[in-house]
């Protein structure tokens, strides 16, 4: 069958090359470079800054979880602080009350949140868009209070929360605790991002995106939309729960009021700033929600949140589709520049 002209024209863009390399080649190159930087960075920084970078990675994992749900599957959540809290408390309780080693609490937190997310996702199936947002909002505001309840106090420590002990580097490695936790978190981050990338590019990922774009057509193609949507909720909660678990270990402390609705909104901000549906964007979102509030505070102590608001509006104005769209735009410009110089 003859290819029509309108098609042939668009086809030029089918295998774009930037500066002589294809997009996947660039991606690999940038990933390797970023990994090398990430490996070297703690060696040149003070412990406190290493600790902050560890938090960036933890937030990134949490935002990645939200991205899988919202960006890939099209379901909204204002309640991911709850899953972060459940992950954090699972780790804290297991370490503090049962003496479980910190690294074993991670899978436990992940599984608990997977189940919690799946169960929450089941009734949430009946809710669309804004209504789902409201239901998850309820989850976010209820969780801190539930954690304070006296019947759970024996495990949760009530309002006081739980203090846990920071782990040392294993095998006598000559690393400070902060540096060790940085590398530990980096390893988890790499694993979880790699798994997310795989998932998004797979049959499951395509089904999730199909549901996001057109649920009726997805059904007609044989996608069990109800099952995939609740599982997406579960997997999303798993990611955010593992982040919460790491957060507890790194911060050495959990308390109900660390996991308010504000945290859920921060994840959402990170998601939008990084780019909804773009997996690496979660890293940029993590950097944003870690450093921008501090920056705002340096600008003005009294008006820190107003400054934060202004920065946020500026960012959205400059990058209306988050960092994802921005990166695409810059890559396109660079490419045109290079090809016109040739």
């Amino acid at each position, binding site marked *: *069958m*003859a*290819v029509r002209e*309108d*098609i*042939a024209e*668009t*086809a030029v*863009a*089918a*295998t774009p090359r930037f500066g002589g390399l294809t997009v996947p080649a660039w991606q690999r190159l940038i990933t390797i470079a970023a990994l090398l930087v990430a490996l070297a960075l703690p060696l040149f920084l003070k412990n406190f800054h290493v600790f902050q970078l560890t938090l960036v990675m933890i937030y990134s994992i949490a935002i990645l979880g939200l991205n899988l749900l919202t960006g890939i599957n099209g379901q909204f959540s204002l309640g991911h602080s709850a899953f972060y809290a459940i992950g954090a408390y699972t780790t804290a309780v297991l370490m503090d009350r049962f003496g479980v080693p910190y690294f074993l609490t991670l899978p436990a937190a992940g599984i608990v949140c997977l189940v919690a997310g799946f169960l929450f996702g089941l009734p949430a199936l009946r809710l669309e868009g804004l209504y789902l947002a409201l239901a998850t909002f309820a989850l976010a505001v209820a969780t801190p209070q539930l954690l304070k309840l006296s019947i759970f106090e024996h495990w949760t420590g009530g309002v006081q929360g739980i203090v846990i002990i920071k782990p040392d580097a294993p095998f006598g490695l000559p690393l400070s605790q902060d540096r060790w936790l940085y590398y530990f978190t980096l390893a988890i981050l790499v694993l979880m991002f790699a*798994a*997310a990338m*795989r*998932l998004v590019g*797979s*049959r*499951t*990922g*395509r*089904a999730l*995106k*199909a549901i*996001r*774009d*057109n649920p*009726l*057509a*997805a*059904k*007609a*193609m*044989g*996608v*069990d*939309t109800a099952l995939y949507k609740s*599982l997406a909720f579960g*997997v999303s909660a798993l990611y955010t729960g593992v982040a919460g678990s790491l957060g507890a270990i790194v911060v050495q402390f959990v308390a109900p009021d660390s996991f308010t609705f504000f945290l859920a909104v921060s994840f959402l901000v990170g998601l939008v700033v990084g780019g909804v*549906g773009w997996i690496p964007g979660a890293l940029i979102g993590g950097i944003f929600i870690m450093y921008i509030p501090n920056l705002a505070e340096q600008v003005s102590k009294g008006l820190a949140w107003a400054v934060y608001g202004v920065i946020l509006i500026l960012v959205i104005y400059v990058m209306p589709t988050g960092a994802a769209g921005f990166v695409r735009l810059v890559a396109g410009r660079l490419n045109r520049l290079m090809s016109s110089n040739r």
Partner: protein
Amino acid sequence: MSEASRPMAGLARDDGRPLLAVSDVVVRFGGIVALDGITFDLPAGRILGLIGPNGAGKTTLFNCLSRLYTPVSGDISFEGESILRRPPHRIAEIGIGRTFQNLALFKGMTVVDNVLVGGHTRTRSDFFSDALGLPAVRDRDRGLHHDAKEIIDYLGLGPLARLPVAGLPFGTQKRVELARALVMRPKLLLLDEPAGGLNHEEVAELGRLIRRIRDDHGITILLVEHHMGLVMSVSDIVVALNFGRKICEGAPSAVQQDPAVIAAYLGTAKT
């Protein structure tokens, strides 16, 4: 699509049972009776043209076949088994594929990914195996990619495979929908106004394509179309609807001359 793996799936059956049997199907929306006791059979390997003026109930019938709507009474059976007990997502697996009247593509995805979703029921996987990228799962997915590529090329979409569907011209998007339905390897293909938005030449090409899909792959086709030239030239049987009722059924030449059909299209028919 390789013929060897599914030689003439539809035509191979000749036990006299129709592939699809619609009997006495009634669908209501509030006060409107969208389908009022529709009955017809579609034998395997045939092309059935379903015609009727706007609002006659053609798309409603398609949506019943996809189980997106449930009839208040009547039955629909496919290969002798009622489909009404199946949920919508378990229709693809028995071999019923479709396209939509007003495009229902996955807007945020590329052409090839859209087509691959059409093959969802052809392989198995779960979150866990997909996240780990287990070799067995990846092998199966590669097989599906291969098939998708073949169909994309078959429909002349090859150079567009990696582009997002959202920016493509309407006619091209319709073709992507067709590719998505074909990769499922359906036994029955439902086409809802595939000629919408195509020019004269493209319609002729589409007619040849529809016949080729049936002849090469033995796929039974149910075609809804307003373009009379197309329907009459490709169909073996034509069923005409008006106000939810079947007003005529028969060979294209006979239906074309039927007074009730002519009246319906002139807008004078009152059931």
